[in-house]
């Protein structure tokens, strides 16, 4: 089975995913995984590594848990416009309380065990290099 390594996965400069299965087609190399499969893999790592959530991470996390903007807005008690704003401001970090809620929401949706204590829900201040294996 052929595999490739992708750096900057989902635009996140610190994320590298290796061992991604590919196969050839007349349209070029195809990634041989289900939709969202790689996004879920990265989302789990973002939550477990307590990565700060900017718009870029928010986009990936939202996709990994397959929730609409309206769905997230309802769950977090904010307006749809607020959720839109979080996703559009790629480099801006979410306000701390919402960052904690998003971490909790994603962890719950993906079945990741995290402590619900305030200190544990708080993300780190900086990102760190993440290298993942897809298969």
């Amino acid at each position: 089975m052929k595999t490739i390594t992708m750096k900057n996965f989902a635009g996140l400069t610190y994320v590298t995913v290796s061992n991604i299965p590919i196969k050839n087609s007349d349209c070029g190399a195809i990634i041989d995984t289900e939709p969202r499969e790689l996004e879920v893999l990265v989302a789990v790592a973002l939550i477990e590594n307590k990565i700060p959530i900017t718009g870029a991470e928010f986009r990936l996390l939202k996709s990994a848990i397959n929730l609409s903007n309206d769905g997230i807005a309802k769950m977090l008690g904010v307006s749809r416009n607020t959720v839109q704003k979080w996703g559009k401001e790629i480099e801006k970090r979410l306000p701390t309380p919402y960052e904690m809620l998003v971490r909790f929401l994603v962890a719950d949706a993906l079945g990741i065990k995290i402590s619900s204590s305030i200190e544990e829900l708080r993300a780190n201040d900086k990102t760190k290099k993440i290298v993942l294996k897809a298969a």
Partner: protein
Amino acid sequence: MNVEKKHKYLQMTKFGLISNMGKIEHFIIKQIKEERYVLTVHVRKRMAERFISDNDIIEMAKTLKSIMRQEDNDTYLLKGLDSWGEQLHASVAVRENVIIVTIFYKEQR
């Protein structure tokens, strides 16, 4: 030759897609909505550059404005909106799977 005349255009109306949409077009839209598609390596790289997620591709199919056959390379051009309300376009090939071949935002190709 006017490129648009060469292609079969299918526009969205308030009543849904107009009636001349063929079986293949229906199939493509259904497959993407139901998350049965694959991405080329090229597309995954473009997605990273533009922060496009799988959710955005599925949302584009759900909000489809038009689907057009591109005879020169045997693909279909889909135009819809991503999760953030931006006009997202995708070029799709039908082989044993529905393959997303290219993805770009309006006027970004």
